[in-house]
């Protein structure tokens, strides 16, 4: 028996355009603390995993990594009009960035925060989480694929993150704040 086609099982046939952005230090995977980042050989290996999984889901991903916050801001600004959602690994800026979360908020697109390790266990308070839709942390490189799966299923759902769904669900200010809660 052959496995069913994942992309055919989704609740929507939209090929969501998802921008995956990894911040400072993440480019150097393979040279980082293995207790936190595991055995992954390189960022290129992570990028290949992400692209393979996105193809199976039937969505488009564009992966960007940079050690320069200014480059990341410009990437967010430029991509906003042609992106349905962001998956962001803040890297070394998780606890200190001001401009990156603001730039993401101004895209008015859903943002998912991912990290290899559990930063709460390390006493790190992220400045990205409050404006994110959701967060996946602690599954090493599998945080990225788990996040893509949950995000795509959520975007497909017209009662939740689907852009053609009810506006109240994507612009609410009370209850759980969403990453695109700007008016």
């Amino acid at each position: 028996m052959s496995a069913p086609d994942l992309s055919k099982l989704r609740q929507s046939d939209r090929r969501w355009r998802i921008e995956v952005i990894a911040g400072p230090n993440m480019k150097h995977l393979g040279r980082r603390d293995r207790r936190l980042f595991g055995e992954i050989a390189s960022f290129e290996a992570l990028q290949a995993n992400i692209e393979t999984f996105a193809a199976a889901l039937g969505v488009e991903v564009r992966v960007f990594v940079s050690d320069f916050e200014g480059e990341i801001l410009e990437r967010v600004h430029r991509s906003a009009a042609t992106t349905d959602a962001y998956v962001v690994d803040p890297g070394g800026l998780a606890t200190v960035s001001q401009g990156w979360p603001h730039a993401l908020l101004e895209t008015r697109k859903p943002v998912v925060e991912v990290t290899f390790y559990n930063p709460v266990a390390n006493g790190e308070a992220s400045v990205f989480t409050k404006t994110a839709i959701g967060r996946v942390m602690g599954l090493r490189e599998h945080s990225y694929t788990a996040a893509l799966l949950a995000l795509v299923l959520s975007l497909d759902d017209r009662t939740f993150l689907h852009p053609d769904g009810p506006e109240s669900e994507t612009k609410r200010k009370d209850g759980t704040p969403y990453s695109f809660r700007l008016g």
Partner: protein
Amino acid sequence: MSNSAQHNPDANWTRSIGEALRAQRPGDHRWRFDLIDGPNMSNLGLGGRDVRTYGAVTSLAALQDGIVAMGEGLGLAMSAFSANHEGSIVEHIYDASSSVDAFLINPAALTRYGMPTRIALADVRRPFIELHFANVAALGWEGGITTPVATAVVMGFRHYSYMGALFGLACALDRGQAQVLPP
């Protein structure tokens, strides 16, 4: 092909999703997963929990049936438990741990003050993943009481948090990357 909204989530649909995702796992071991839903989750459904946070999931039984079916599709051995009494959850964790490889727990109303639950999870030395429908960190606090000892956390994607977590945790275990954190 588009699929109609699967709000339950429908167990036939999630089982197919699991079967499709099985090919994406880096291994094929039949890990034993136990799903635990905490206090108030039995109130899911029309007239119960706020649909803007919890979506249109019709009941806790439908949710757990859907997640169990997805896990079976992924090639995992699944069990599920829920209670409104913290003592029941504490006893369940100790009792089930010898026949469980990893726990998935939505601490729900134990998120802030479930210290006995946290101690039980830390005592049994099994990887566990903390789940939430909502992005609880967006409410202004950095995780819950179990978060600092959680292997991983997935939150903010309604019931798709569970689906992303199930796949991500299976992949992490396949690669020996699901850490048990120190208590």
